[in-house]
């Protein structure tokens, strides 16, 4: 029988008797099969939100995929926050029966997690993959809600806590997954976003085509059939009646003795008369003004997982770069890589004849590349793999930290030669993207000569920390 786990926090005491408590850093260390859901205390909802974000941003499937329930006692928590959990329990009604009831309600999610091949040991580094998995595990349509608290105007509450500031946007990630046919979208609404800052808060206003001022007024034209007098309604208005200034008759029934053939606009600034006002949009966030066609128009969709998506959620995205690279070059696990490093280091120390190098590579915008490439991603990644293949040798050992960070041990290669290899790699990558897209992923490389005093863990850690 699975148990709920109450996430320990600094400011909340345990409010539900008999429930297990666990610290945030311990989540990975318990047997996930025992966990029914994480229970987060929302007494101070901003803190509770932090807890949720930590869980969802964890890379271990057994942690981030687990159901999360909020323990709430007020109705003032913003809508996009309360809906981000898998369910909410009101503190006043929190008793054993309710807690148990929820255990069975979230059981399908736990069973899905349990069936994953790597649920306990794996690490899902790719945000798109994480998104795919969390949607698949919930087995519901992912619907957006509108909000004025995010400048995108729409949020998918379930996904919000997964994304850190440095991650690609939620909308972009979903669009990517849809482009890969992993998700099916259903149209909800269309929306304009500021092309500069992405804000959905745009003021659409009619303005003068001559001087661009939005200080304009409009009036309806009236055509009096009898005398052919045609002028603005204001010219006809006498008290609350409409009287023709030409023939002095009162207008009675629209369509019988008069009609309204059109609407005319006037600019109060330059006194231009026109009928086709220029529509302008002003962004509430960054203040920039642009024509609507120069802003970004996007469809807002609700998403369900496709059959391919369900399969990919189980076994991984085979279009992911690491998968392709693995296929082409054979990637070692990070664990194996470290072992190789130690072997190589001992060899060098012993024979004192060889020099080998540790090369650390980071692609900075590879995430964006996924979105940009969409259906072409696989093809481009194959070419990218080929470049890796031509630069690296059979004897080199390569591993991937995640989709964007690679470590290579170049055996029998001095730092100088390794640098040249890295240059060729960089050139090859630049050429590939220059020929294909007007997009160049930035790439940073650090090279260290392997010697006994170089601590691999420290070196890699340092690279991860300091190369941003």
């Amino acid at each position, binding site marked *: 029988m699975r148990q709920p786990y109450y996430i320990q926090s600094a400011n909340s005491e345990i409010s539900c008797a008999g429930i297990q408590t666990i610290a945030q850093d311990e989540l990975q260390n318990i047997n996930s099969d025992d966990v029914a859901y994480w229970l987060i205390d929302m007494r101070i909802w901003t803190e509770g939100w932090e807890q949720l974000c930590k869980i969802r941003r964890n890379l271990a499937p057994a942690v981030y995929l687990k159901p999360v329930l909020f323990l709430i006692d007020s109705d003032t928590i913003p809508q996009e926050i309360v809906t981000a959990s898998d369910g909410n329990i009101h503190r006043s009604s929190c008793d054993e029966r309710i807690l148990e009831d929820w255990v069975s309600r979230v059981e399908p999610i736990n069973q899905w997690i349990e069936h994953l091949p790597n649920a306990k040991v794996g690490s899902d580094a790719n945000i798109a993959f994480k998104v795919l998995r969390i949607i698949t595990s919930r087995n519901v349509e992912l619907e957006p809600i509108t909000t004025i608290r995010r400048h995108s105007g729409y949020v998918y509450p379930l996904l919000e806590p997964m994304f850190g500031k440095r991650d690609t946007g939620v909308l972009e990630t979903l669009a990517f997954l849809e482009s890969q046919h992993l998700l099916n979208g259903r149209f909800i609404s269309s929306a304009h976003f500021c092309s500069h800052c992405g804000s959905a808060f745009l003021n659409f206003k009619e303005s003068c*085509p001559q001087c661009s001022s939005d200080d304009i007024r409009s009036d309806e*034209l009236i*055509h009096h*059939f*009898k*005398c*052919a*007098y*045609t*002028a*603005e309604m204001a010219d006809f208005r006498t008290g609350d009646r409409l009287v023709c*200034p*030409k*023939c002095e008759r009162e207008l009675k029934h629209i*369509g019988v*003795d008069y*009609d*309204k*053939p*059109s609407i*005319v606009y006037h600019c109060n600034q330059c006194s*231009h*008369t*026109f*009928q*086709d006002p220029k529509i302008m949009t002003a962004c509430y966030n960054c203040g920039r003004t642009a024509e609507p066609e120069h802003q970004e128009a996007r469809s807002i969709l609700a998403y369900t997982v496709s059959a391919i998506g369900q399969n990919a959620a189980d076994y991984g995205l085979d279009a992911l770069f690491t998968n392709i690279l693995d296929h082409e070059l054979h990637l070692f696990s990070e664990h194996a890589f470290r072992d190789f490093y130690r072997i190589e280091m001992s060899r060098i120390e012993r024979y004192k004849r060889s020099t080998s190098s540790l090369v650390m590579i980071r692609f900075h915008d590879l995430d964006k590349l996924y979105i940009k490439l969409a259906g072409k991603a696989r093809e481009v990644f194959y070419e990218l793999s080929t470049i890796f293949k031509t630069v690296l040798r059979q004897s080199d050992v390569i591993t991937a930290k995640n989709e964007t960070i690679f470590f290579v041990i170049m055996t029998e290669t001095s730092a100088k030669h390794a640098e040249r290899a890295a240059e060729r790699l960089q050139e090859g990558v630049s050429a590939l993207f220059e020929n294909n897209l007007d997009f160049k992923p930035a790439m940073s490389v650090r090279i260290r000569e392997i010697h006994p005093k170089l601590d691999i863990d420290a070196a890699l850690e340092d690279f991860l920390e300091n190369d941003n």
Partner: protein
Amino acid sequence: MIIEDLIKFITSLSPGQMVAYFWPFFLLDMTRYVFLDFIVIIFYVPRRILHRHKYQQARNLLYKERPLVSVIVPGKNEGKHIPKLADSLSKQTYKNFELVIVDDGSDDDTAVICRELEKQGKIDCFIRNEIRGGKASAANTAFRYSKGKYIVHLDADSHLALDSIETILLPFYMDNNIGAVGGDVRVANAEKDIVTRLQAIEYLKSISTGRTVSSEMGILRIIAGAHGAFRRDVLERLHGWDVGPGLDGDITLKIRKLGFRVVHEPMAICYTNVPEKFRILAKQRFRWDRSMIRFRVRKHRDILMPSANFSLTNFLASAENIFFNLVLDAKWWIYVVQMVIINPSLLGYIFLINFILYFLANVVEFIMACVLLHSSLRRKDYALAFFLPLIPIYTGLFLRTVRTYAYIMEFIHGASYYDKWNPWKVSRIAKEEKL
């Protein structure tokens, strides 16, 4: 032999008999169109030359004041003509004008064309009425949004001579009491075929010469919508145009009723495209002729009645028109009947002699037009002379038949209430109100 017989017949007639046999020509047409024109032109041409400095003075005044002139072009489905019109306007000697186009419920791409020209700055104001309101309503819409001191009303399917705007404004600067000036209308597509050539001769006679003579005599009764200039204050007093058809003649008459002079300026030239098929021409004239009856006889019958604001020239302007069109239309049929009764065997001669008389009259009229307009005529205009022999047939048979038919239809059915220029809703009201 025929010619010999013909000469024998003519020489056998005493002057009295001559008039008796050919009274329509001698008593009416020759007197009105040849003799009267001749007298007026004889005085007009030298005076125009002698008064050159007055025109120059007016031109100086005009350029000193440089008033804004609004060129208004109301129309339906005329979009295709607008780019060319805007282009010809941009070459005008007088530059201070605005172009106001009103699209009266077109169902083609007029709005698209005009919006584009508006964006390019070639149209100053474009108003599209989604619901068609008729010619008068469209003109009034254009007038409502025009800002100029003078309003020049043009048809879309026309273009102006380079100095046309300047020239049509000159009369306003020569006489403060002028309320409207008619511009000359000439045929743009004269070289197209025989139909357009005949109309070109007709326009030179009836508009260029005819209206100049009427204007000189103070009885001008129409400022053409195709090319007319109006003082803003005068149009404001009238609140613009009334329901058509025949709105051009109607507003001219109203301006006269206000006590203003209206004149024709033969040197302000607008070239317009005329029908190229007899069938289409017949339809056009049918419409024009019906509106003559309606507006002069029905709507403005007060002008013919002695009353407080009775004016002799206004009376004459209308009476002359009604008489020479309506009554003289009937006279021809009386004449034909008379000739058949008197001596059917002479019909052939009578016809031939009439033809020759009218041909000669047309030659004289054509020469007068040439003298009057010489500085503005082109070589190809003179070449129209070769078609003069066809004119008696064109005016005497073709136009007369159309006119008679139109008059009969108007009197029997009041058919022009259902004129295609007006939407049904407007025509219905007009008929109810007996406009």
